[in-house]
């Protein structure tokens, strides 16, 4: 992917967003009036507790003892050798409790909900990972939990639906629109606006109205902070490039953000290319969309010429979303990060490659990042270092993969 690169030194990257949640022209607060007060309440709480020693100590303890952090940074030596170029390191978010990076954020937001005295938690989910992570923390804290999930995703991710129900959550099937993640988000917003006095909405990605993109990012930067220290410890140097998949973009921003000031570290966000960008059937707003306003923020969107949001396609339910976090929109425009897309087929190929060479079954979402590493590593010398965010494990996807390959399990 070619892109004009401006000097990142002149760009305010790490001090963002501004007080009203803007990353350059992106982000902001675009919601119905009734949500302005609870968003302000949330912003105040977040700013207070982000500096509160007791809160941070409780969060650290939960991350260590409940989530299992730090997650390892693993040198995938055999796979690197097979690729014949750069050394690939995997940030093992798949080893977290609940099997993905999502729990880093739900643990944090649930602690905030508790501080705010809200006893009812709602969430939207696509692949079900965020729903499971939310249901998990709700169970642990004894909070009522309702998860909105598109009917189409419920069909694709039956195992996660059952997991959420086991954990005591009510899973509401969303039948409107395209019946996927975007519609689940609409429905969660409708619930929130109705039950705003008692309910805390745990958004699972770095999208939505301010302060969600900044708050979720800050909870997820544990990924990049750990990875940075771990690579320095293991190799004595910083990576040459970071690679992460981008749906809403929370695992990617969590990895990227702590490296933004490290000018020598390249960053690649990998979108769901579906059947290919030319097919129109994909989930790659940064590669092939344009800016607009949806779900509370201004960002790149998949939309038609009238501004209606169009249906996306990705083999991975977690990437099947027509928008993307506003900070990624800003990182794209500023040139600090590059955004590429890989197809379903390329992601499936990487899924198998990692499974067979390293004994690690990756999530289909993370397989997109691995697919780009497969392309990039061979172009680089053997002394170059790549960190790929292995954002989740693939157990939830084995039925999808088997079905695509005509195998009945």
């Amino acid at each position: 992917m070619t892109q004009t690169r401006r000097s990142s030194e002149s760009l305010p990257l790490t001090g963002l967003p501004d007080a009203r949640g803007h990353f350059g022209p992106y982000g902001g607060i675009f919601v119905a009036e009734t949500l302005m007060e609870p968003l302000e309440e949330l912003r105040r709480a977040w700013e207070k507790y982000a500096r509160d020693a007791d809160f941070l100590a409780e969060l650290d303890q939960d991350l260590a003892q409940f989530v299992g952090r730090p997650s390892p940074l693993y040198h995938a030596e055999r796979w690197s050798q097979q690729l014949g170029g750069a050394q690939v390191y995997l940030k093992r978010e798949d080893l977290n409790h609940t099997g993905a990076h999502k729990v880093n954020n739900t643990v944090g937001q649930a602690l905030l909900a508790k501080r705010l005295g809200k006893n009812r938690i709602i969430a939207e989910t696509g692949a079900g990972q965020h729903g499971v992570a939310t249901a998990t923390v709700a169970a642990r804290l004894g909070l009522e939990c309702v998860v909105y999930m598109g009917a189409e995703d419920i069909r694709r991710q039956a195992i996660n639906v059952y997991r959420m129900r086991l954990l005591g959550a009510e899973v509401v099937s969303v039948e409107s629109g395209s019946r996927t993640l975007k519609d689940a988000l609409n429905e969660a917003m409708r619930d929130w606006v109705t039950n705003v006095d008692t309910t805390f909405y745990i958004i699972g990605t770095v999208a939505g109205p301010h302060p969600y993109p900044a708050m979720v990012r800050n909870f997820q930067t544990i990924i990049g902070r750990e990875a940075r220290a771990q690579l320095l410890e293991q190799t004595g140097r910083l990576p040459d490039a970071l690679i992460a998949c981008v749906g809403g973009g929370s695992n990617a921003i969590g990895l990227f953000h702590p490296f933004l000031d490290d000018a020598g570290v390249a960053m690649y966000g990998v979108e769901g290319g579906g059947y290919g960008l030319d097919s129109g059937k994909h989930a790659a707003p940064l590669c092939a969309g344009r800016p607009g306003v949806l779900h509370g923020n201004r960002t790149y969107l998949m939309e038609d010429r009238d501004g209606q949001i169009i249906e996306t396609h990705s083999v991975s339910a977690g990437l099947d979303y027509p928008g993307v976090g506003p900070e990624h929109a800003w990182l794209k425009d500023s040139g600090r990060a590059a955004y590429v897309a890989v197809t379903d087929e390329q992601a499936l190929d990487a899924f198998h490659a990692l499974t067979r060479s390293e004994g690690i079954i990756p999530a289909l979402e993370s397989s997109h990042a691995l697919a780009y590493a497969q392309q990039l590593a061979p172009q680089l010398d053997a002394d170059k270092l790549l960190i790929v965010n292995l954002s989740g494990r693939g157990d939830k996807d084995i039925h999808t993969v088997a079905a695509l390959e005509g195998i009945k399990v």
Partner: protein
Amino acid sequence: MSRIAGRFESLRERGRKALIPYITAGDPEPSVTVPLLHALVEAGADVLELGVPFSDPMADGPVIQAACERALAHHVSLHQVLDMVRSFRRQDSDTPVVLMGYLNPIEVMGYAAFAKAAHAAGVDGVLTVDLPPEEAAELVACLKGEQLDPIFLAAPNSDAERIRRMTENGGGFLYYVSFKGVTGANRLDVQAVADKLAQIRGHTGLPVGVGFGIRDAESAAQIAAVADAVVVGSALVKRIAALADQPGKVAALAPQVIADMRAAMDRA
């Protein structure tokens, strides 16, 4: 004076409250909309609210979501909605028309181009559900530059400072959302609305309309007693939905619910 301000002034002189029906443009099909608008005026509407269909109507309940889906099945675009207003204006140059919808279709057209086209088509006001005053400066400037009234939503949890800001930026009337929730929900509490309106009037000189949850003649009359305008959406759109497979009958039959409300409001 804008057409909306003029309409509220003449209503005040006659001691009458405004009745503002909402329909989604192109629901259940595009040919129905203009005749339906005329029929609503016949039935007693003072201002018309025309919804611009959007794929992701986050603030709306299931009734208006379904209306958007019916309209979008016919690919009704913002351009077509403006054409409908232009067509309506050929026979009605008096009744104010407010466009109601979400920001993204306007973003895509461009604020300045939209404002110009809306003014040329005969639109009087624009209400953008997902655009709070904090983010509205640029669109407000474009609208005012074309003599269009930006109409803001106030909610039960909007404080005095926010009401003042909406009044400074807005025009036409202030739209008070009667409860925390989505359109069409059954949560109307007339006394709570009356209390909040008393507060709001201390911070704004704009007429105040009330919407969300007004489902029949009785609730319309109760709200008319405390507000300057009664906005009716889901109750009307439900009638339209019931006639969706007989679109030829919509303009003749659906406005009855508005006529009933008008009669009850004028009796009170």
